[in-house]
């Protein structure tokens, strides 16, 4: 596997506090790679080390197969979690300025800025100052600024935060398009659904440590099997499930019904569950096996408390 990014034994300490502890992973070239974890897990510290803003306390990083020199880092695009642009600059100037700082010639930088803005529906506001743009537009401009110098490796820190669902979809498409163009994308998020939809591989971090690294499918395989039941009216399934040792969560179903997501990892399978329901005379309107989500896999790996912090 050709790695676009390699981290080996990364450690970051701020005084007595350890933010990242012994983190190692590899990002395959051309892949979309997600770094997941709750707030405060160490994602941003990790990403800031990867792009050279922070110096690791220990460990080594290789970017595009080499030591992360200035020349190499010019081939990397970065969208930080704490983001902003010069408010008095126009959208095209802001993009071009950041591209030029990455070594793009002036004329090319402005040409690409115009092209990117037009492609992303911002052609009409390209000469408007950032302070006059909506928050979503400004965020889009910032994303474009991170890719205007056509980097081989793009690192986005929480790129979806602050975006409305429509713009989240647009950003997902942008990420896919960049990957399709052969670029490697690494992004962090605490929203598992984005990673589930986009990522080839994921790294789960909890308390600064690696909890999992692998494909999304591998992660999901670690999640428990589930069954979803729906009962009519106010029927309570708890007296049926509890004696058999099932764990469940309850949510509102269709037409005011009660819906139960039951974990099937207590030694009983779906057959035993169905049998117990029938014996109890539960008014079932739905009984189906369900695919666990990445979130549920995450909960299974790091525990309920850590996972709750992610929400």
């Amino acid at each position: 596997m050709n790695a676009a990014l390699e981290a080996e034994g990364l450690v970051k300490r701020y005084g007595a506090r350890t933010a990242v502890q012994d983190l190692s992973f590899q990002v395959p070239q051309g892949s979309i790679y997600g770094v997941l974890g709750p707030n405060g897990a160490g994602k941003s510290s990790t990403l800031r080390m990867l792009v050279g803003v922070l110096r690791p306390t220990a460990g080594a990083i290789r970017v595009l197969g080499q030591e992360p020199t200035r020349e190499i880092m010019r081939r990397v695009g970065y969208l930080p979690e704490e983001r902003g642009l010069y408010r008095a600059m126009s959208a095209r100037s802001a993009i071009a300025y950041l591209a030029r700082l990455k070594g793009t010639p002036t004329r090319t930088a402005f040409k690409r800025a115009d092209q990117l803005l037009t492609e992303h529906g911002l052609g009409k506001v390209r000469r408007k100052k950032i302070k006059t743009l909506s928050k979503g537009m400004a965020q889009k401009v910032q994303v474009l600024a991170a890719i205007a110098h056509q980097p081989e490796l793009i690192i986005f820190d929480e790129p979806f935060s602050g975006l409305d669902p429509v713009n989240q979809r647009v950003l997902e498409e942008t990420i896919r398009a960049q990957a399709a163009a052969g670029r490697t994308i690494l992004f962090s998020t605490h929203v598992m659904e984005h990673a589930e939809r986009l990522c080839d591989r994921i790294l789960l971090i909890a308390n600064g440590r690696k909890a999992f690294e692998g494909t999304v499918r591998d992660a999901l395989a670690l999640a428990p099997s589930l069954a979803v039941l729906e009962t009519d009216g106010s029927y309570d399934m708890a007296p049926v499930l509890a004696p058999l040792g099932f764990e469940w969560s309850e949510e509102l179903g269709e037409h005011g019904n009660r819906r139960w997501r039951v974990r099937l990892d207590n030694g009983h399978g779906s057959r035993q569950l169905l049998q117990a329901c029938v014996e109890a005379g539960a008014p079932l309107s739905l009984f189906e096996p369900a695919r666990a989500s990445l979130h549920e896999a995450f909960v299974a790996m790091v525990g309920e408390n850590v996972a709750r912090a992610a929400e």
Partner: protein
Amino acid sequence: MSGPVFLVARRDYFAYVSSWGFWLSLLLAPLIIAVLLFAPLLLARAEPPRILAIVAEQPADAAVVTQEFADMARRDARTEIAAYLAAAAPGVAAQALSAFDAAPDRAAGIAAARGVAAQRAPRALGAFPTPSPRYIIVEPPAPDVERLRAYLDGAQALPDGRMLYGALNIRRVAGDPIIEYWSVNLSHGEPSDIARRAMRLAMQREALAARGLSPNEADRLNTLEPRVAQFDPRPSAGGARVTLRQRAPYYAALALTFVLWSVIFSVANMLLTGVIEEKSNKILDTLLTSVTPLEMLAGKLLGVAAVSATLFLFWGALGGGLLSMAAERAGNSMLGQVAAAFLEPQLIAAFAVGFIAGYLMYGAIFLALGALCESIQEAQTLLGPVALVLAMPMMLITPALDNPNAPIIESASWVPLFTPFLLLVRAPSGLDWIEIAGMGAMMLASVALILLLAARVFKAGVVNQISMSTLFRRKARG
């Protein structure tokens, strides 16, 4: 120059010069300086003459004091006309002043001088001064001070509608005059000084007459005065008498020091607010992937230095042009000599060196402080103590003007943060080369050290998000 440093400098430069604040500074500063220079003069001219009344037991006393006021008004008019002609028509000044002196009174003197100017220098006639006296003596509207009080406290106007500014009451007690000055303007006592001067001469006349001497002897004695000359013992001065031309550089240095101080403080403030703005705009992380903190610091210093250079070029061209014109046209007049002093190479060199060193030191400190602040409000709390440090050299400027080589001034000149200002203010006194080299080396070392420390603090502030509040929190936790 490396690319990122240039790009940061360029962006900062254009961000500042495209702001309205820059244009305000560029255009308003010369205007404000002109107003500060000429406002007192214009205000004095715009002020109407003050109306005084003199009440005296002996009419001769009133006449003596009234004459002194008239003589003073004549002298003032002559001085104003002399200054104007020295600048506007130096060739006719002597003849015009002779005509003024030959005239019987002030008004006739002004008319005579104007007549000479009209004949020999018609171009100078346009702005020829028409000086008005500072005081007008009127007949007292009441015979004694008790009854004058209503006029003096503003309750009653004079018959012609004007208000009485003050009254001099001259009494005689056992033959000796006593002057009482009545006015609601308690801080202004010039009329009583003028009356005292006049009455002292009158008393001298009376004393001489009592001894059988001519009273006019008093006038002659009053004019007796030794000639005083000041010399500079340094070989470079060549033993010549000290004139205004030699003293003018000291005043020019004082003015330039104030300009230097104001500019350094203003541009350092630009750096401080610029970094805070970038921190609050959350743009630093984006920049830091392309620019190192040291490059960013250097770029910002360079960008604002270019802003300062633009200001200086404009002000220098404007001021230099006006000063050159004044130096050329006003020749040996006070204005011409002071103007020429501003253009002395040693002052310009000291100003340039002082600006570069001062800007780098204070600029780097302000940048570092900005990196540690999260808001303008937080920065303002820090600026208090910093402003006090900046104010310290300014407190030494006046003593330095009196004695540039006083031990305290010499010692303070070696404090790197004060050197740029004190070097400039001491420059006209002719510093030793050893002292200049020593202070230069000290400033250079300090600039390097401050830049190094500032870069570390700047990096801690922008990269590790260390701020004053986090520092205080850490300290509080122990």
